[in-house]
């Protein structure tokens, strides 16, 4: 059963991508740690950290693509799952600070001492254990996605309505996490981390390990997604995207299918957030901002939705561009990003990947090119 899934998952493309990611997972940390700074192949720590961040974004975009590109659910609230995973990790890291905080309280994080809290809130219990935090990184986003999706998909909220309420969801969470009373550090969020699994988060080796872990996580997620997409389930996802009611009429429980994809996607987003937090050293309510979630959509769109490589390329390309622009021409970044939204939707509906594959198809022959062109058009709900 599982072998069949894996067999389907590891098609040529998946093997290639997984190998590249694993190679990066080894090569970059090795070059960073082993090679002298002067060596031409040395990867400086700040570059490694930057790309580590991009890889978590790529994982987030991949998660979004699973529901948007394949199932047609445009979530404008995926940043919420990312942030929840990040907060779960952040809570673990806060508990690891121990007495090294400013107030030196053995149990309570600094902000709670500052707020004059006497006891740890019940929902902070267990986060001193890594296994528990790891479980919560999957369960909290998954549970939120399950509850939200259960209601939304059962009552057949779809299309833009769904997009708008996912946005409302992350907005509500944004407001909630800004409140000090929530017990998540309010405005400032969680920061000043010291250790992860006993190693200092600042240490170069830890940073290299986190980078490797992110690349490996992305490779695993890619293989899982590839398995999902290549299975009959993945084909049904596309059916739901293209002709939802037709899918119902041949006997598929569309709401269950959507719910499963949504929950898996939310968990992946949670993992991405959890890997993001120790690398950037902070998590705050700003991660819940609706604008962030919409930006994830543009990464996916630029790279090419409905393909698994697209979102990874898109996340790295757009964020690379952002890093470059915000340093070189800070005034122009929003113009560029806004223009990117417009240009992608108007001229590149299938993103970079679509452009490349239709280019290849054109090389092969005009008939083929037409076919690819045709399939590139997003399917429309034709069932009445």
């Amino acid at each position, binding site marked *: *059963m*599982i072998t*069949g*899934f894996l067999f389907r998952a590891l098609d040529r493309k998946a093997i290639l991508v997984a190998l590249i990611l694993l190679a990066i997972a080894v090569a970059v940390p090795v070059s960073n740690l082993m090679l002298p700074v002067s060596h031409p192949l040395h990867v400086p720590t700040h570059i490694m950290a930057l790309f580590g961040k991009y890889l978590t974004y790529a994982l987030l975009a991949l998660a979004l693509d699973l529901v948007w590109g394949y199932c047609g659910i445009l979530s404008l609230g995926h940043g919420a799952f990312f942030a929840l995973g990040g907060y779960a990790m952040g809570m673990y890291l806060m508990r690891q600070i121990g007495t090294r905080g400013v107030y030196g309280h053995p149990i309570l994080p600094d902000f709670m001492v500052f707020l004059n809290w006497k006891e740890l809130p019940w929902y902070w219990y267990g986060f001193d254990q890594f296994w528990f935090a790891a479980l919560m990184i999957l369960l909290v986003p998954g549970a939120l996605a399950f509850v939200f999706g259960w209601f939304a998909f059962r009552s057949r909220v779809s299309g833009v309505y769904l997009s708008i309420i996912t946005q409302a969801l992350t907005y509500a969470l944004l407001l909630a996490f800004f409140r000090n009373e929530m017990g998540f550090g309010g405005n400032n969020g969680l920061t000043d981390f010291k250790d992860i699994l006993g190693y200092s988060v600042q240490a170069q080796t830890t940073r290299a390990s986190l980078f490797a872990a992110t690349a490996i996580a992305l490779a695993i997620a890619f293989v899982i997604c590839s*398995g*999902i997409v290549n*299975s*009959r*389930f993945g*084909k*049904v996802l*596309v*059916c739901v995207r*293209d*002709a939802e*009611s*037709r899918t*119902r*009429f*041949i*006997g*598929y*429980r*569309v709401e*269950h*299918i959507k719910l*499963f994809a949504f929950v898996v996607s939310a968990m992946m987003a949670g993992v991405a957030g959890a890997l993001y937090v120790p690398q950037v050293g902070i998590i705050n309510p700003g991660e819940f901002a609706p604008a962030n979630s919409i930006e994830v959509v543009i990464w996916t769109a630029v790279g090419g939705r409905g393909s698994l490589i697209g979102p990874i390329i898109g996340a790295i390309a757009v964020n690379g561009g952002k890093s470059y622009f915000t340093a070189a021409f800070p005034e122009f970044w929003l113009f560029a990003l806004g223009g990117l939204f417009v240009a992608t939707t108007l001229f590149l509906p299938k993103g970079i990947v679509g452009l490349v594959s239709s280019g290849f198809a054109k090389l092969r022959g005009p008939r083929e090119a037409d*076919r690819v062109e*045709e*399939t590139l058009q997003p*399917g429309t709900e*034709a*069932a*009445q």
Partner: protein
Amino acid sequence: MTEKLTDALLYLDGVSVAFDGFKAINDLSLTVEHGEMRAIIGPNGAGKTTMMDIITGKTRPDKGTVLFEGEIDLTRHDESAIALLGIGRKFQKPTVFESHTVQDNLELALKRDHGIIATLFHDTSKEQKDRIDEILDEIRLTERRSHLAADLSHGQKQWLEIGMLLAQDPKLLLVDEPVAGMTDAETVETAKLLRRIAGEKAVIVVEHDMTFIRDLDVKVTVLAEGSVLAEGSLDHVSADERVIESYLGR
């Protein structure tokens, strides 16, 4: 409901549904026997499509009884549950999954476990593959099996959709305007295909094309303003004064 109320495969009694006060279906009663093929005709707005919506669970009737196999109350089930009970539907406008190949379309429609675990992990068995080959042969798409459904001609899409219905292996097929947009030759072939299917499965065909209905040579039900106007052979109903009136208007 433990006791069978009727031996008919499909049993509609006193069904009514209104949209914003407009009565789309008005006290409609209809029975279809096992293996029977029934043609349904009627002017635009007679309620043909709404009737299919009710049978397949897309629309819930305001009142009335809809029973399948004499004991299953269809008004209590949704579309996917009804499909799994054994009612397949072909839409007026052909709807196939355009970004999948012809073969994938059939594989997806094939009658088997549609649960999440099964769809994620189960392979297609040898028998299932054979069944798909059979259907491909039946709908004459064997050569195009690995083409995308989007590339098919209109008529081929209609056939693929019928093929998907066959793959579902339903007890009752609802076929809405199967020959719209087909050439004459294709129409004749389609009639033959449907007649082969009938007998084993019950079929309800909604069609405007009278030549096609004549080719089918089955009992005809005429719908008008949401209820049954006449029933019988095509010759019988086309002689009916009220039928002529409702088609031509006053």
